[in-house]
């Protein structure tokens, strides 16, 4: 069976890859492009560990097929920092211990970034509801939420 030829933009760079029709976007990122920062937690859209941005929309990449990414633009965790400089969200997660084992963290960071791009000044309740699709077993979310709040404040200052 012929594989599909996909052209996408990921974190600003153009990528081409071949994938099987049934291959998920998550597996394409990880296995075809070796962008392993995006994680599988459930493969059923319940945990958010595989969150990426697809044409500006927050998606679970385990529920998207690789072929659906053709011609589209993506953002993944690998594109979040600019070289040595961490994104303010990453910096605040580092300073405020917004992570423990870190397996859910890429998905949470992508989801939180999507929130702050829509709403630079969300309330704590809004942050909690926005992140309700991201399961974390370690932190109890407290420092996650505080980190997002602190990053939002930092980013508002510019």
């Amino acid at each position, binding site marked *: 069976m012929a594989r599909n030829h996909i052209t996408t933009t990921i974190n600003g760079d153009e990528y081409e890859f071949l994938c099987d029709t049934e291959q998920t976007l998550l597996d394409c990122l990880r296995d075809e492009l070796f962008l392993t920062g995006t994680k599988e937690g459930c493969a059923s859209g319940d945990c958010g560990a595989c969150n990426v941005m697809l044409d500006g929309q927050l998606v679970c990449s385990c529920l998207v097929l690789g072929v659906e990414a053709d011609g589209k633009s993506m953002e993944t965790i690998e594109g979040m920092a600019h070289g040595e400089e961490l994104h303010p969200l990453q910096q605040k997660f580092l300073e405020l211990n917004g992570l423990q084992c870190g397996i859910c963290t890429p998905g949470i960071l992508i989801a939180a970034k999507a929130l702050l791009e829509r709403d630079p000044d969300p309330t704590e309740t809004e942050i909690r509801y926005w992140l309700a699709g991201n399961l*974390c*077993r370690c932190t109890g979310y*407290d420092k996650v939420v505080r980190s997002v709040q602190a990053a939002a404040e930092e980013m508002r200052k510019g």
Partner: protein
Amino acid sequence: MSRAVFGESVKRIEDPELLRGEARFIDDISIPSMLEAALVRSPHAHAEIRGIDAAAALELPGVHAVLTLDDLRPYLLTEFLVVGLPSPSYKQERNRPVLAGDEVVYVGEPIAMVIAEDRYIAEDAAQLVEVDYDLLPAAADCRDALADGAPTVHKDAKDNLLAEFSMGYGDIDAAFGKAAHIYSEHITQHRGGSHSIECRGAVAVHDPGTDQLTLWVSSQMPHSTLRVLVDMLGRDENQMRVVTPDIGGGFGPKLVVYQEDVAVSVAAIKLGRPVKWIEDRREHFIATTQERDQYWEVEVAVDEDARILGLRGSIVHDHGAYTARGINLPQNSAESLPGPYEVPAFRMNTKLALTNKVPVTPVRGAGHPQAAFTIERLMDRIARELGLDRTEVRRRNLIQAQDMPYTRPLKTRGGVAVVLDSGDYPRSQKDTLERAGWDQFPARQLAAREEGRYIGIGLANFVKGTGRGPFEQVTVRIGTSGRVHVYTGGTAIGQGTKTMLAQIVAEQLGGDMGNVTVTTGDTAATALGIGTSNSRLAVTAGTSAHVAAGKVREKALKIAAHVLDSPVEDLEFDGAEIHVKDRPGRIANVGVKLGELAHAMAGTPGYSLPGGMGPGLEATEHVILDSKAFASGTAVAEVEVDIETGGVVILNYVLAHDCGRIINPMLVDGQAIGGTAHGIGNALYEWMGYDENGQPLTTNLADYLLVTATEMPRIDLLHHCSPSPLNPLGVKGVGECGVVPAPGAIISAVEDALTPFGVHIDRAPISPPEIVALIEQGRERS
């Protein structure tokens, strides 16, 4: 000057890679020519296997092998994983076969391993493997399993009693004989799965040239995995290495050595190709160990003043189909039932029932939350019966600070005396009540009721034995690069182990954590290792690291004194060098780099070592710590119950905890809050359901509810510090502490909110429909 880092909220050294998506978890390991595996698992709770037909699967392009037990046997000395902790109480030995032979005893039991070019093909092929089953009756409920005539979990067994033991002390009959009041409770408890967001996984590589097998595995105990592989594969330690990559959460079940770990290893040897197996979430629900049901029958005897005279009862514990760990879990439950209270006489009988379900082993808390829930339910019962405030009953029964250390005439599973080493339990309760506004709560409750809202408050005290021994190995070495390397048999599963050890070591070796590298969970790095469980590493590995770093410090100073021709007392560490202190008459800041010292001690052919000292600049320690360090604390929960839907919202939650001296307050807060989230799940949400045939009912994260950010309240933390006298750092563990009191405090609060309906809650977790039913029953009674 050397900077102090012990006790500071320093940033974690683990985090930069994790935040950039550059960390390497098990599924991120990819090796050229690697194949991927999927398992054929039993869809039945109990069946005989009459045959396995893999022909169709093998015809699928890309499939390399379908391995059954028969295929693995030539590579194995034994087909069983013999891992049970020692105990005289076993009635049956039930070890897991690496793959099922002629019988399957739980849904999810592995039968065959399919190995293919990738996971997609392997999973498709697994569907094509035809297994001919002859169904057998299953034992699903652990109480029913112990009844006469119950179907047996294993066809060759006469019954389902896996083990039975009693423990106790004091004259229990006399205590009940003289009691003013006796109250009994029947309590049902269930805890569910671990659900680390990373499931299990393993990657095995065999180099036929060197006959070297390397197994990367997401495990809390790689050294015990190695020992099982030695036993089963008949290969010696030098031919195998077990390594843990970054681990995406453990929470207990990853301390178990699993069938897949062994099967993947054999597959890599047999096929001559690297083999990867990554568990998916559904498999995690059916094939990774869990904590499930305990049924408690307990009686408490009290005097006229509500002081406990005696406590007795029994536990029936769901063990699952095999022994994947031991009797430890219900042993913890029974042993820790008295908790922080004075209990003059005590007797518990515990039965472990085999069931046709995936084996049960510890999940964060390991039997302690169930004990805490039970004793706290009894405290509430005594208060209600005697018309006392719930806090007063507890206050009268708490062990007093001046009685520390407090010896309880019980022994742990390893025969070590149970000694509560330090703590001020009454103060913990008092401070927590004040912070939570307990005394002002009746006014809040009244105001709420006038608005038609049902709010309640509840509390629970706890103790949690941490730092289970006997040791954890740590090597501290200064390399010729000047870098400080720390190696431990403990594993890092997200709790900040690397940072914790780097702090302890840096404290003595210059204060520069950036100059410390920590290697965890690698059998090539430390000869011995126990691993991560029981909130043990800060105590065990922390102590070994502290002592080892102290020895390296002492030696480094002596060598520096020789090199700099200056007395040791004139020298000080500063980052990666040792220099002469700034004092009159000395030339300040003349120093020597740690790397130069390591070079000197690495030896030069034909030259004596400086100062006549032994070679190298390193120390290995495994400080023996047999006794557990008991952390303690109090939780108060304030909740609102929607009496129409049964929904519970936590309005306020205060947790006081005492884990001795704190190494990193920020990390301790994270552990306490994370543990509390797990405990909230155990109180209100988490339920691993099975039907009467042993079929799992909750096999995805939509049906099985983990707490999300929206259910979690802000946790108000209070820190107390009663240093443990058992170790030189004065530390205790914290990882499990948040879990332990949560169900007791929350259920107490829910019951309090529903006082107008006379609701009595005898179980955890409790779901909204159950709450509504209890309210209905209460209404009918009145």
